[in-house]
């Protein structure tokens, strides 16, 4: 399981990296949206975790950019990870075609549950349990 985490805050990246370590998934970091967009084009990932508020391009714009790219990037499952509590957040995420939203502080179970849900939804039953 390969995860890309696009997040400007180093502490947040470390926390999620540790969590994914525990879960047995590997994580690649991108420190801003532009770097994230480069990474999805250059490497293969199973899921992308995306912060919203970042210097430069914001996370939701980055998701919209991804959706315009060629397959398989446009189909990559994206989970928005944010501390933004504004009431219209979910709507905005849906509009950007993100697959799921989880709130910071990130809880391990929530993160994994979201990843499981998103993977099952996007890859359907192509998943292989080993």
């Amino acid at each position, binding site marked *: 399981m390969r995860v890309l985490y696009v997040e400007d805050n180093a502490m947040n990246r470390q926390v999620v990296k540790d969590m994914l370590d525990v879960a047995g998934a590997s994580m690649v970091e991108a420190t801003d949206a532009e770097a994230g967009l480069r990474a999805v084009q250059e490497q293969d990932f199973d899921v992308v975790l995306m912060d919203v508020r970042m210097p430069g391009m914001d996370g939701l714009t980055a998701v919209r950019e991804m959706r315009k790219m060629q397959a398989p990037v446009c189909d990559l499952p994206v989970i928005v990870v944010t501390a933004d509590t504004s009431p219209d957040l979910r709507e905005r995420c849906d509009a950007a075609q993100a697959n799921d939203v989880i709130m910071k502080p990130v*809880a391990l179970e929530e993160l994994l549950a979201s990843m499981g849900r998103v993977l099952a939804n996007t*890859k359907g039953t192509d998943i292989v349990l080993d």
Partner: protein
Amino acid sequence: MRVFLASMLLFCGLAAAVTPVIAQEPAQQTPSVSAFDEAIEAAKTEMMADPEKALAHSERALKLAEQQSDQSKDQNRATALWLKAEALIFLNRLDDASGIATEALGIVEAAAPSTKLHGDLLRSRGAVSAMSGDVQSAMSDYQAAFEIFREAGITRSQAIALQDLGQIYWEAGDYERTLNYYEQAVELYNDDPGFALSNHNNLGETYKMLERFADAEREYGLAIEAARELESPMLETRILSNLALVQVEQSELAKASATADRALALTRNGEAADWRNFVYGVQARIAYERGNRARAAQFLDQAFAGADFETTDLVYREFHELGAQVFDELGQQQKALAHLRAFQRLDSQARDLVADASSQLLAAEFDFANQNLRISQLKQGQLERDIQIERERSEFRTMAFVGVAVALMIVLALTLGALISIRRSRNEVREANDELTVVNADLEHALKAKTDFLAMTSHEIRTPLNGILGTAQVLVASQSIDEDNLKRAKLIQSAGQTMKALVDDLLDVAKMESGEVSVELAPTSLNAILREAGSLWGDKLAEKGLDFFEDVGELPATVETDGGRLRQIIFNLLSNAVKFTREGSVTLRAFHKVEAGQIAIEIADTGIGIPEDEQKQIFEAFHQVDNATTREFSGTGLGLSICRNLANALGGTIELSSAPGEGSIFRVLLPVIEVQSHVHESLKTPEALSDCRLGLIEANPMKQAILAGLVEPHAKSVSSMQNADQCISMIDNNQIDHVVVDAGSVASTQDDLPALRDLLAHAQQAKISTTLLLSPTGGLALDVVSQFQHSQLLLKPVAGDALIAALQEHYSTEKNMSGSNSLASAA
């Protein structure tokens, strides 16, 4: 003597100006001390320190004088009465003092007119008049006293009378005349250092008010010399501080700095040490004028180190004002607000001082010569300042920290409310209306600021919290640390969760205020929520040594409500009950009020209770029963506000009955919207995967999440478990119908196989279907495992669709089987 002089000088304004005469009197003592003289002497000695005693001594002297028969009787009576009047002035019993002084004047005018005693008595009566606000009477008495002293050739007393007169003009704000009198006083008499100090300091203060800073500087210089002669570092420090502030006014910052350094050096020890913080305040002012805000902030922190902002002294008023300015400019809004609040408190204290004549002495003390002037100016300038304060208030938009700042916001909003009412009475209605508009706009700003602030804070606090909670969770989950450190990690986790709950609460309140409470009604099992609450809070209550009783009556199995929100209400109320109960019990009660069509959920405690007049307010946000309570029982006071809002959002209400000392009962009343119960269905075997409550055992969290995500759309519900024990308890509690078991998660080696075997046997016995996933390369012997009881066995790796298909097939097979069974029996 030095100490006596020092305190005398501090009181040298107003009524206190009388006392130098007393202080200088002991020299005239006769060698043979009679009982009368002794009483007079004692009265003089005690005058400063303990006026009550002085009063008693003067009354004793009066009695002794009454018993005399010689010619000195009347004069002695008058002397005793004079001291009695003085003592009464010190005790602020002005009416009594006035009567006594008039009586004594009657005696002395007949027996010893135009003597020093006559003049002293006129000064006493003048002081009473001045303190009562009768300026004209005071003036005529002081002038008469001056004439008497002049004719008698007592220059020192003359000079004091001139200071009295100057004082009156000072209070009236006429500094030119004040200066006139003070200058005459200096010319007349400036011989002893105590007097010189008072003279020059008075002059310095007057020049300062006239903005003749160079002259003020010179006079303070002379006052400092006098203070040195008096060997009083305390007085020297105070005058040096005054000097430094005047030098700041002249932009002589280097000089001011040197002066302040001198003052600081003096405060290294002895009586002046008390003034060190004040000197830091002066240095803060200097640093600020030099444009060094950070340094100013440092000095301010030193000036107020360890200070309780609720109780700082009036002399620090200006430094609080400076603090509000400096910290605001530095963006440290929390500190700025604290200073602003203290400044406002002292400002209103200053106003009270004017109203309260006895406090005028105090007011005089804090700046030697008659701070009253400042106070009257303060009064005049109040309006401008109020507006200024409001302006500053509305600028405090970006806040630093949640609880404190929000609470302060509210306090300040209340303060503004108070200011409005003060000013309404003070001004014309039209003016008041104009101001109201301003204030309302500012209040709106404040409210908007609060909302913005909450949203921002929530974001800003969540980020560090992410680090705290996430790392703690990783530590706990990684199982790589020892027992002790695991405990610590759990502690961090729990503290972080508490903080997260607090942020969530604040956010909830903000949303409720803007009408954004979200409620999602769905069929909900009340019993399940109550059971969960009971088991969770039962433990917490036991930890605190409290009894917990549950009394749940017959309830509809399922009602239409928002389970999450209802849980939040019940948890909040239970948390409150635990918090405010020191001993006794907490009871969770629930019953169906069939006629009313309501469900009642009660949380009763034997805690501190709530007084009747507080019972309505406690549902307001941020409210807790009195401050003392807040200190003993920490919390934001948000819980009940949230509960009420949520109960309303669910179509219900909250009632409270409580008595202080006996406890409280919170009763949540919810409308019953009964829905088709699904409870009985759990008793029969599901006929399709979609009716099935599925359990999953997978130790690897990532795989577990994927597995859950995969089966979730196809099953009625999914419960993830990590080990066999969790599964067995779920089976026993009838919470699942079917379990998917990853064999390797239960038995990682051949040795663990019995655990797997027992689990499968247990499930089979409970008529729970089992789907066993086994990796042939995982180290478990296939031929052994396949012997265990199971409904299905799939070999890994297994494709997602293959698993779903297998599960669905299991049910269609079951159905067919049961169908064929019934067919068979029919045949």
